[in-house]
């Protein structure tokens, strides 16, 4: 194993623990927005697909990159917007919206 790979594992495991800790605190009330939210975040695969689509390595990679950017952008843009749309609906009794 290369040192970079080990470093990656450290990052992964620590992030998983942080994620576990933080997400355990999300109330069931917000579980659907949580899913839409993490969906949007997982659209971070854009980081890979943007390069594939713009690097012009070869036409096969460009086509795959193009489709991947399309799918990931739908998730990022749609995911964030729909999370916000849902959260806007949550309001307290008599009070303002969340």
């Amino acid at each position, binding site marked *: 194993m290369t040192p970079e790979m080990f470093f990656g594992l450290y990052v992964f495991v620590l992030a998983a623990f*942080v994620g576990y800790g933080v997400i355990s605190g999300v109330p*069931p009330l917000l579980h659907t927005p949580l899913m839409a939210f993490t969906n949007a975040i997982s659209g971070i695969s*854009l980081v890979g697909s*943007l390069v594939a689509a713009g690097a012009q390595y070869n036409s096969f990679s460009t086509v795959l990159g193009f489709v991947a950017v399309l799918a990931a952008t739908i998730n990022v843009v749609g995911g964030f917007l729909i999370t916000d749309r849902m959260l806007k609906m*949550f*309001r307290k009794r008599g009070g303002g919206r969340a």
Partner: protein
Amino acid sequence: MSGLAEFLYFLASVLFILGLRGLTSAETARRGVWLAEAGMAAAVLGTLMHPDIVTYKWIIISGGIGSAVGIAMSALIPMTKMPERIALSHAFGGLAAALVGVSEYYHHTHQLGHELPRITMGALGFEVLFGGLTFTGSLMAFGKLQGVIPGRNITYPYQNESNIALFVTAVLMLIGMIMWPALSWLLYPMLFIAFGVGVLLVIPIGGADMPVVISLLNSYAGLAAAATGFALGNNVLIIAGALDGASGFILSIVMSRAMNRSFTNVLFGAFGKVDEAAVAVSSSGAEVREASVGDAAMLLSSGSKVIVCPGYGMAVAQAQHAMRELADILEKEGVEVKYAIHPVAGRMPGHMNVLLAEANVPYDALKELEEINDEFAEADVALVVGANDVVNPAAKTNTGSPIYGMPILNADLAKACIVLKRSMNPGFAGIENDLFTMPNTVLVFGDAKDTLEKIGQALA
């Protein structure tokens, strides 16, 4: 990679975690979304500075179409269709990860002609495997929710054995391409096997188990994204993938626990076929008492406390607005109305909360199972709207029942119980519900939305 890009990735990672933290309370949740949006913008900006990118043409076209589709989908989709939309976005996430993996592999081996390091190959293979099965599995889940594919559990002989054999084949191919770089072309057939595994994994799973499946696919999509991070040596991908994976994992656990079942049981023990003898044991033959709309209205308004137990039937009938209007009328008459939300009511985690929030029900009236279960005994009426298995007392009493041990809403303990139901067909689990035949229970047949509106009119 430039220092600025590295810094932007770092910033994005921190913002994602802070954003997620915002979601721990309804007051701070929207701010959390904004933080994560800023993080995503930073990550994309950092990526656009990548030295390999020579043209922005395809990025702009596909990003433009993707944004337009994303905006349209999020603006137009009704809240009742949220499970479908989530399943679809898991499919997109899996697809994107798998395609990036294949593209990266093709670029290195066919174009540059050099072998990928074993570790990188392993990460790529993992990414393609999980991306592929998440893609087709989520499409299947979408199809089942949408009704394109029969929602019931579809079983055939040696189903689990053949599924496991297929998955093991894919894993062996993955190991093969890590061990012997000459076999790296196995990536392509493995992708197709992964597609097959995704389809076959979801086929046997019935509608009532969808919350677990959707959560699990969420987790897989995250793992695929994290693997992309390993393959590309990019930490923000690893972190975002780990967060997504952890979230899906936690939700899967919460959902399984709410059904008193293990992952393995949900995935490999198609619901309903568990114990058919138990159905006969339950009190079949007992008569149900049917009530008119007027009787129900009288019963509801005569008490001082009503607890509503919503289920998937409320979503199907789009009855959430009618429910809230009826609750408003009751509250005007001095009746306290609360909502008891079972974790697996509906087709995805939190499904009922979103629907009722859409109908303007304040979220402090939405109570979790543990929070409200002791209050049923003092409630005058439990109003069951399109829920079935989550209020089935057999879970508490009948050790032979397939749902025995599942935590349920104590609707049976309320002084009276009104069940709104379309017909006498059993629930998705195909189990008879003793609640319907209890002496203090009455049933009102018909479309839930229609019935709720009529009850409201009778009271107005």
